[in-house]
């Protein structure tokens, strides 16, 4: 068992996991937000991420350092999200959540196709030229770009929480999340709140995307893993538990990394989903003792 042969790998796996997890966490924030506030599961999440990545990549192609792509990605997706809300999403807000899943699925495959037409189907990546850092005389290797993206996503995450706490819009969003009708009565323009919530979500995805562009590779059709994981993270954290998202995001990342060592990389997604099912069943069985159920 390699993890025992090379004990340093455990630490290595942990760190790698945390760094992957941080990006997923950032995406999950958006999802948790939209889910909690509008009761919509946004399946297009992954596509937003990749699109954000392509924006950064486009900037990089102009010969600008990809770091400066981050604001562009964020803004572009923010605007796109706002538009999409005004055109499509608002129609499904108060409908059955299942409807929203399908609607956003429709959006996602459209975006895929458009990305394929605009950016082509080449596998792309944006080079940062950041170096690598070695710890414990070369036993631990960290790509600086990953560390960078880790820091950025953590900052982003904290920024979101802070924003929710202090800003006027943030408070409006929180109020709406707790009780939309009450908020409406108290004069909150929930439509506006929804629109911005969705836009912010898209923006966050965009930001995460530009990190992905720097850290991993881009392809119009690899959005799914991001959707899937952010999904998991939110479920584990439990709805409306914004701070918990960060924890469960990092945790999941680490867990996944270890699973890659223990049961093999090809099982990553399978593992995640089995885990999801097990968690759900376990929780429902526990509630069943109290004669309640997950709802």
């Amino acid at each position, binding site marked *: 068992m390699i993890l025992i042969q090379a004990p340093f790998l455990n630490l290595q*796996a942990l760190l790698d996991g945390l760094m992957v997890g941080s990006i997923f966490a950032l995406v999950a924030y958006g999802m948790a937000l939209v889910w909690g506030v509008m009761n919509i599961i946004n399946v297009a999440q992954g596509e937003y991420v990749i699109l954000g990545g392509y924006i950064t990549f486009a900037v990089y192609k102009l010969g600008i350092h990809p770091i400066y792509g981050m604001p562009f990605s964020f803004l572009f997706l923010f605007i796109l999200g706002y538009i999409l809300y005004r055109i499509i999403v608002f129609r499904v807000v108060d409908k059955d959540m299942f409807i929203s899943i399908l609607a956003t699925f429709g959006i996602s495959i459209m975006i895929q196709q458009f990305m394929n037409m605009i950016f082509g189907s080449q596998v792309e990546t944006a080079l940062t030229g950041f170096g690598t850092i070695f710890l414990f005389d070369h036993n631990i290797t960290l790509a600086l770009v990953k560390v960078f993206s880790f820091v950025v996503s953590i900052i982003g995450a904290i920024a979101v929480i802070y924003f929710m706490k202090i800003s006027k819009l943030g408070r409006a969003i929180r109020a709406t999340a707790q009780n939309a009708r009450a908020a409406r009565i108290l004069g909150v323009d929930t439509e506006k709140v929804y629109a911005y919530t969705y836009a912010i979500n898209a923006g966050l995805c965009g930001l995460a995307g530009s990190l992905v562009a720097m850290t991993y590779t881009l392809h119009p*059709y690899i959005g799914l893993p991001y959707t899937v994981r952010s999904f998991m993270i939110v479920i584990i954290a439990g709805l409306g538990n914004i701070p918990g998202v960060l924890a469960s995001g990092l945790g999941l990342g680490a867990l996944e990394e270890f699973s890659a060592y223990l049961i093999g990389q090809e099982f990553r997604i399978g593992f995640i989903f089995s885990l999801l099912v097990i968690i759900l069943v376990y929780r429902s069985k526990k509630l069943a003792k109290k004669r309640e159920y997950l709802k």
Partner: protein
Amino acid sequence: MKKIIVTFISALALLFSYSTLSFAKVVGDKIVLGAAVSLTGKYATNGEHTQRGYDLGAKIINEAGGVKVGGKTYQLEIQYYDDESNAAKAAALAQRLIEQDGVEYMLGPYGSGLTIAIAPVTEKFGVPMVEANGASRALFTKGYKYLFAVLNSADQYLNSAVDLMAEKKKNATVAMAFEQDAFSLDVKLGVMDRVKANGMKVVIDDALPKELNDMTATLQKVKALKPDLLIVSGHSKGAMTGVKQITDLKVDVPMIAMTHCDAAAINKNLGGGGDYVLCAAQWHKSLAYKDSFFGSGKDYAKLFESIYKYDPPYQAAESSAALLVYKEAFERANSFDKDKVRDALAQTDMQTFYGPIKFNAAGQNTSKPMVLFQVQDGKNNVVAPVKWAEAKLIYPIPKWSDR
């Protein structure tokens, strides 16, 4: 209720009428070849290379006077569908091309998995298919009669890399990571044979998921176990991700071998990160093959670049070659009867810019060797087989600390 039914009867009727006016195998002076390629989905990159290869081939042949059958000259035309890199879709589209569009000569899709999906269909209808991108060995063991592949089977891709390693170092250790798909698993078969034959030891044997975008775990193991040879196969995504993360993590391995490096253009896109990587290729422009349409490989490359603005990967070249094969077969058969054409194809024995093409009983082109090139400061230089080598293999790969 009734209204709805009526609408859809009429809708069906419309589809129906469409099919009737759909063109048959040969219309006027056009020979229609059918192809389902991946314009979207996970193979879209190489699907595009394939399509461009086909288009270029048809263009050149047509400009050179087209195909002469029975004293009359015909133009080649290709009808495409998009299989979305999806096996189910590919099979369905093959059905459609043959049954509804009356196509009687098929070109292959991109990728072994999709070719495997289509082959049973073409067999069923007895429609010849010349395919240029289905390398899986499984294709040539099912006794298909109408399948012809201009390329070497996947199990030969990286064999020479393993042999090179064996020359350099006795009982070397090997680390490998293969995507879980028809092509890569087949490459693996070949590699395993050579590894055994050379008495090497496999220290890492990872399987990569189909939606792979992260190989960190594998590479960290590599760092820990320090194998002599690292083999990665996962289409363009695999090559790109692999090199990218090898660079990020500064993984030092004496020899690295991959597939699809040129499709992913790792020599250009990764700022030197791709240097020293050994790449398996069906074809390389520097090879000294020639034909009367494209001239030499270099000419083909120049032509291709002038149109599509990038260096042709072998996926494009072999696709173009497929059309040369068809032209030649049509003219020898001097008929459009698909069985006559099939027999003519079986007789094929020709020289192309892409290499000699001669099919064995299983419809596999055996007369052409694979080549192995190494990325050397941004250029793909052939290093094996020795007959074609334009540069010396650089071994071991210099440590990152000295790069």
